[in-house]
Each structure stands twice: as C-alpha cells, then as structure tokens.
C-alpha cells in the first residue's frame, strides 16, 4: 500500500538554528557621544525584552440608557532584559559593564533576537544583580538592562516595526 507523501513545513523557524540570539551594547564614553558596539559575552541567559506597561482607565458618565464607556490607555514604562555574562573580570567588556552599572553611565543596546527575526534597540542603563553561583558552579554575573526607550526593527530589512 503506498504511503502518504509527507509535506514540508511552511514556517522557517523549524530549521537548525545557525545563529543564536545575542546582545550588543554601546557604553557612552566620557565627554563623547560616539557609538561603538561591544558584543556582550553572554552565558545562557539572554531573556526576552519584557515591556513594563501600565494600563489606566477612566470611567465616563453613565448615559440615560444606563450604559457607560470606559476610556482606557496603555502607558509605556520602559522595559527590561535580564542577562548574565561570563563573570571573569579579566574580560574587558564585563569590566566596562560593571563600571557602567556602578556609575550609572547611559548605554545603548541592540538585541538581536534571531529566533524572532527582529532587533530591539534603544536607550538604557545597566543594573548589576551581582555574582551568581556557588563553589561548584560556573561563575556568572547578572545584569539587568533597564530600558528607557526602545523600538523594534525587522532584522532582514532594517524597517521599523511601528
């Protein structure tokens, strides 16, 4: 009896991942505004960008027919991305990130979410979560990218997703 012919999947996300998600940051140099991107030496943790939105609402008057309309708005309150880097402080990028977190130096970020085929980029500061792990763990240093403003772009075309 002939077997039914299988069909190829139509989505392009099921293939072998040739490139992983990664993060680049630019730390504002003293007295300058040039942008030099540094690739962050990530360990496994590069979490998704979590939007901190707040919903507000205002109930309007009740009409004669006893119905009411509620005005609703969503306020953008920045976002954050938790990351963890290789903790060895001989790595110059980790050292620069720690210094930026301590001093509160502004940073720019560009998160390449290859899995989503998009890039999130914007302005942020770095917050340190400190060392993580015990004597038998592979050491890592936790950071939070505290995002002030951000936009999404299609990676292939560079178009803003508005």
């Amino acid at each position, binding site marked *: 009896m002939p077997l039914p012919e299988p069909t190829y999947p139509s989505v392009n996300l099921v293939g072998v991942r040739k490139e992983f998600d990664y993060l680049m940051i630019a730390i504002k140099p003293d007295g300058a505004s040039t942008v030099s991107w*540094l690739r962050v030496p990530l360990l496994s943790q590069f979490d998704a960008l979590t939007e901190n939105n707040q919903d507000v609402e205002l109930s309007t008057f009740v009409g004669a027919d006893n119905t009411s309309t509620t005005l609703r708005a969503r306020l953008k309150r920045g976002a954050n991305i938790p990351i963890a880097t290789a903790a060895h402080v001989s790595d110059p990028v980790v050292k620069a990130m720690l210094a930026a977190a301590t001093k509160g130096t502004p940073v720019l970020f560009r998160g390449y979410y290859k899995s989503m085929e998009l890039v999130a980029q914007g302005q942020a500061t770095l917050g340190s979560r400190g060392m993580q792990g015990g004597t038998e763990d592979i050491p890592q240093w936790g950071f939070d990218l505290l995002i002030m403003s951000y936009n999404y772009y299609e990676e292939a075309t560079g178009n803003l997703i508005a």
Partner: protein
Amino acid sequence: MTKKSTAPAPALSDMDADAGVDIVTPHKDRYGSWAVIPSGKRVEVTLTTQGNTQIMVTHDSEEEARAQILDTLKALK
C-alpha cells in the same frame, strides 16, 4: 665576513604601543580579525580580537571606523 643587514629592525606600530591592554596581541596582524560590510552609504566595521572581544562601528568612512574601534579598544581596560 658576514654582510651587515641594512633592513630596519621590526618595530611595533605606534598604535600597538599605545594600546597597552592585554586583549591586544601586538605581534598578531592588526589586533585580530576585521570584517568590513558596506551598509548603504555607510560601512559597518567589526573587529574581533584575540581575546574574543568584539567591537562594531558604523561610520561614513572605513578608516574613521577603524580609528574609533581602536580608541574604544584602548578605553577598555
């Protein structure tokens, strides 16, 4: 009698000497591997050092981008 060589002694370039950071291996060719990708009217230059630090700059001029990358490399201590 051996003939004295007139070739100049090899010297580190000024930038090698100035860099002074351990992620740079001065005797290796130009700090590591460079990648230059045209991006519209601009150019995207990436340096990956021997120590696996990656710096990327987008600029109008490739030379200016390379200079900015080396400045950033020196600032990383």
